[in-house]
Structures are given as structure tokens and as C-alpha cells.
């Protein structure tokens, strides 16, 4: 027993648990809650409305002069009120559903979404020598060598949640939503996978942390302005990179069931799609799953195309990452940078949602199979030709 205990790397174990708790419960979950708030406020200003601005931190009740407001907008505690509302609502299960799968489906939506965040490098490394740790702690839960493959493998499980929800609800609208969703997921998974093949070819690497380190030193894939990024090769490669970025983002929209590809819920046609029969926290889980998937998808895009946690022009500013020799403040700055990029991406998601109308289902399938797939495939060939031409 003692030898078994001794064989455990206690430091690794504890830091991993701390990282898991930090990332899922202190970052992703609040981020999900606040992206819902951001969605409501952003959609409101797009439509010339005000949006939820009432729920505040009532500091005036405690004798302070003003309630907290950022940029003069209130309602910052709205997500808490929303969450509380979900807990207090009646959790209604219709009599005709298949109860086991009906309960399973919401979990199947949110669990894969949260699991994929394990491989995302959300920062460079943290020098915790003040806590007595000799080695700096890497800011990634699992530094897998098959990062993107892991993400795609787990994230595509999310469709089971939707399909099972649609089927077990025993009602026509959820059923149609589930069927549409599975068809859509299969079509877009292809172009999603193919779109990152050029990126993997350029990096020669499937480890997301190493991709970030490379981009930190040699310029982001979409912004090759320092280090090796100034070479002719990288600028020629910018063409396939931009194409694959576009394909990746579009496919990501489809994967996360966001407008203009939200055929699975499609309020105007299918009531609420696959979650029509759900209420209370079960519905909230679907909601959280959707937003968590959005955050992870943005994290993937940021890591592969926009340098992950790296600060723009880092080597020129002296803010670049030196393995094993990064001060704590820089590590924290890297983490902040990563989440700042994700926030930017989520705002972009929201802007797109409130700008574009929904595609018709046949247009969606046509776009997926007859355009995106081909473009992604041709892009792989183009990248290969460029790489060979530059003798890599």
C-alpha cells in the first residue's frame, strides 16, 4: 500500500485537481452564465433595446453610494437570478417519455462539452515557487499529444445528447429536431476535421500546447508578423490558413447548433426543437451545454489560429514564453490573454447570430456537402503543394 501511494505523483495529482476545478467551475461555468447575459445584452443593443439591466449588486442596501455598474450598464447579477429561477421552476417530465433516456440526454450534452476543455492550454505555465513547487505548473489539464483529435472525438458525442433528447421526448417536434441535428452534425464534422488538417500539416504537431508555444515565438497563424512568421513561406501559407479558418469557424457554428445553423431548435418551425419537452434544470443543462460547446470551440479556434495564450508581438515586447523561466505575473497575463480572446470570439458568435437569418435545411446540407467539404479538401492539397514547394 505504501509503495502504491509513493508511486503517485502527489504534486501532479493535486495540481490537476485544482486545475480541473479552476477551469470548469471557476472559469467555464461562470463564463457560460455570463455569455447568456452577454447574448441578451448584445442582442438588445443590436435591436435598439436596453436588455436586462435591473438585477444588480445592491450595494445601496449596505449603505454604499452606488450600485456596481460597468460602463454604465446594470444587470450584472442577472445570470445568478436566471440560475436561481431554473432551480425554482417545476421539473416536469411528460408521462409519455422514455424516462431513462429523457434524463440521460441533458447530461450527454453538457458532459462532452466540459470534458473537451481538458486539452485546451489556457495559459503557458505558472511559476508557483512561492508555494514550494520546484517545477512550474503547466496551465493545461491534460497535455495530450492528440489534442484536436481528442476534442473532435469527445465533442461529436454531444450530438447523442440532442438525438436522444429528440427521440426520448416522444413528440414530433423534438424528434424532427433530433433527426435534423444528427444529419447536420455528420455533414459538418467532415469539413470541421478536414479544415484543421492544413494547420496540423503546417505545425507538424498535434499537441495544442506546443502549437501555442510555436505561435508565441513565430507569429500567430493568422498574424505572422514576428519571428519566423516574416518568412515568405508563412505569408504564402496565409492563403490556405485563412480558408481553413473560415471553414473551421463556419463548421463550428454548425457543430454548436448556433444560428445560422440552428436547425435542431429552430424556434419558428419546431417550437423549441429537441428541448421542447424539457423544463427547469434539465433545460438549463442543454442551454449550458450549448454555450460550453461554444466556449470550447472558440478555445480551439483561438489555440490553432490566433496563438492561444500568446500575447501579440510577444518577442518584440519581451513578453514571450521561455520554458521553465516564466515569471508568475506573465503566466497569469497569458491566462488572461487566452480568455480575452475567447470572449472576443463569443461576442462574434453572438453578433453573427443576431445578424444572419437561418438557412433552409436543404441549403444547409448543400452548403456542407457541395461547398465546404470540397473547399476543405482542396485546401489540404493546396497546403501540401505549398509546403513541398518550400521544401519542408
Amino acid at each position: 500500500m505504501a509503495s502504491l501511494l509513493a508511486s503517485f505523483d502527489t504534486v501532479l495529482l493535486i495540481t490537476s485537481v485544482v486545475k480541473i476545478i479552476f477551469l470548469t467551475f471557476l472559469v467555464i461555468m461562470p463564463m457560460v452564465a455570463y455569455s447568456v447575459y452577454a447574448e441578451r445584452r448584445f442582442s438588445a443593443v443590436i435591436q435598439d433595446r436596453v436588455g436586462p439591466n435591473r438585477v444588480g449588486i445592491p450595494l445601496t442596501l449596505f449603505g454604499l453610494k452606488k450600485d456596481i455598474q460597468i460602463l454604465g450598464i446594470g444587470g450584472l447579477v442577472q445570470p445568478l437570478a436566471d440560475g436561481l429561477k431554473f432551480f425554482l421552476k417545476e421539473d416536469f417530465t411528460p408521462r409519455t417519455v422514455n424516462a431513462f433516456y429523457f434524463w440521460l440526454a441533458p447530461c450527454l450534452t453538457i458532459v462532452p462539452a466540459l470534458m473537451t476543455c481538458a486539452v485546451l492550454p489556457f495559459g503557458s505555465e505558472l511559476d508557483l515557487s512561492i508555494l514550494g513547487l520546484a517545477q512550474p505548473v503547466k496551465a493545461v489539464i491534460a497535455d495530450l499529444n492528440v489534442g484536436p483529435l481528442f476534442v473532435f472525438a469527445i465533442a461529436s458525442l454531444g450530438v447523442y445528447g440532442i438525438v436522444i433528447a429528440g427521440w426520448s421526448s416522444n413528440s414530433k417536434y423534438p424528434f424532427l429536431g433530433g433527426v435534423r441535428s444528427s444529419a447536420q452534425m455528420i455533414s459538418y464534422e467532415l469539413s470541421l476535421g478536414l479544415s484543421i488538417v492544413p494547420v496540423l500539416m503546417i505545425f507538424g504537431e498535434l499537441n495544442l500546447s506546443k502549437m501555442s508555444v510555436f505561435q508565441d515565438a513565430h507569429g500567430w497563424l493568422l498574424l505572422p508578423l514576428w519571428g519566423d512568421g516574416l518568412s515568405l513561406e508563412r505569408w504564402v501559407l496565409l492563403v490556405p490558413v485563412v480558408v481553413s479558418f473560415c471553414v473551421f469557424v463556419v463548421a463550428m457554428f454548425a457543430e454548436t447548433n448556433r444560428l445560422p445553423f440552428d436547425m435542431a431548435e429552430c424556434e419558428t418551425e419546431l417550437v423549441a426543437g429537441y428541448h421542447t419537452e424539457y423544463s427547469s434544470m434539465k433545460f438549463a443543462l442543454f442551454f449550458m451545454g450549448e454555450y460550453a460547446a461554444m466556449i470550447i470551440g472558440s478555445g480551439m479556434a483561438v489555440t490553432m489560429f490566433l496563438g492561444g495564450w500568446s500575447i501579440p508581438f510577444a518577442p518584440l515586447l519581451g513578453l514571450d514564453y521561455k520554458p521553465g523561466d516564466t515569471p508568475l505575473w506573465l503566466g497569469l497575463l497569458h491566462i488572461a490573454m487566452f480568455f480575452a480572446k475567447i470572449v472576443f470570439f463569443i461576442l462574434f458568435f453572438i453578433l453573427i447570430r443576431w445578424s444572419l437569418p437561418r438557412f433552409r435545411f436543404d441549403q444547409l446540407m448543400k452548403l456542407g456537402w457541395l461547398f465546404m467539404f470540397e473547399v476543405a479538401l482542396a485546401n489540404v492539397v493546396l497546403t501540401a503543394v505549398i509546403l513541398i514547394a518550400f521544401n519542408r
Partner: protein
Amino acid sequence: MATVTVQRPKLAWHEKLFLSTLVKGLKITLGHALRTFRQISGGKPKVTMEYPEQKWDENLPEHYRGAPALVTDEHGRERCVSCQLCEFICPPKAIKITPGEIPSDDPWAKVEKRPKEFEIDMIRCIYCGMCEEVCPEQAIYLRKDYAITGESRAEMVHDKKRLYEIGGVRVGLVNKWNELK
């Protein structure tokens, strides 16, 4: 009937690929978002009024149909003679009248009847204005009160006292009971 064939717009290649149209759409939404955000963070949204603090009351039109109420005439007489026409016409059956006789020593004994109790259930009322339309005595009017709230069902039933409170005095209407005229 002449048939008009509507031509579909001819789209350029960049429009067909959603490229330029996407940019155009984003420009519109982002423009609105930034403009409204600037207004909100400056504390003054131009379009939206923040309801409980700001109200539009003084701009309500003359014909606005709010809560129905009873009115008195210039002599303080209840106009209502409890004919119950409004009670009969009321589509959601919100009105309940208990008619009462006016004693013979009353100065308005000639009118003979006035309501002993007059109740309008504001939970049922649909603000249609039929009571006002049907009233031969011009005794019931829809006023401009719209925020009728209460904490219980009983509180939402307006009794005679409350109805006269809302209604107040209306002068210069038909004065058929006025002996001075």
C-alpha cells in the same frame, strides 16, 4: 388579373457566396449595437423608456381605454341609475350591480334608483369599453388608469367607492335630471 412575375434579384458571385452580404449585415447590426450601447452607457436610451421611472402617461390619447369607473355630475349626484345594461353587455361578465332605491325624501328622489353596490372585477375586465358605449346615463367611463395591480383577487375587485374615486366628476354632459335646466 394581370400576373406580375417578380424578378429574383441577380446576385453577383460574392453575394451568392454570402461574402459581401455577410459584411453588409454585420455592418448594420454592429452599427446599431454601438449606437445603442453608447446611448445606454450614457444613461439615455433614445428609443426605450425605462417603465416604472419614466412613463408615457401625459401622451396617452384622448380615446385611451383604461380602467372603467363611475362618475358623478356637477351636483355630486351619482349618474348611475342601476339600469344594469352594462352588466348585461359586459362580455367577460366583470360587472356586478346590486340596484337600490332612492328614498323619497332624497333631493334626487325623481331618479328613483341608484346602485347599492357596484363591483367591477378587474381581473375579468377586458377594457373593451362596451359599458361606456351602452350606458344611457353617461355614468361609466373608461379612464386612463392602466396599472391596476393587487396582491389578492379580492383587492382586484373595484367596489363602488373605489370606482367613484377613479372616476371623479364629469360635467357638461347630458343633464336630463337637472331641474334647473
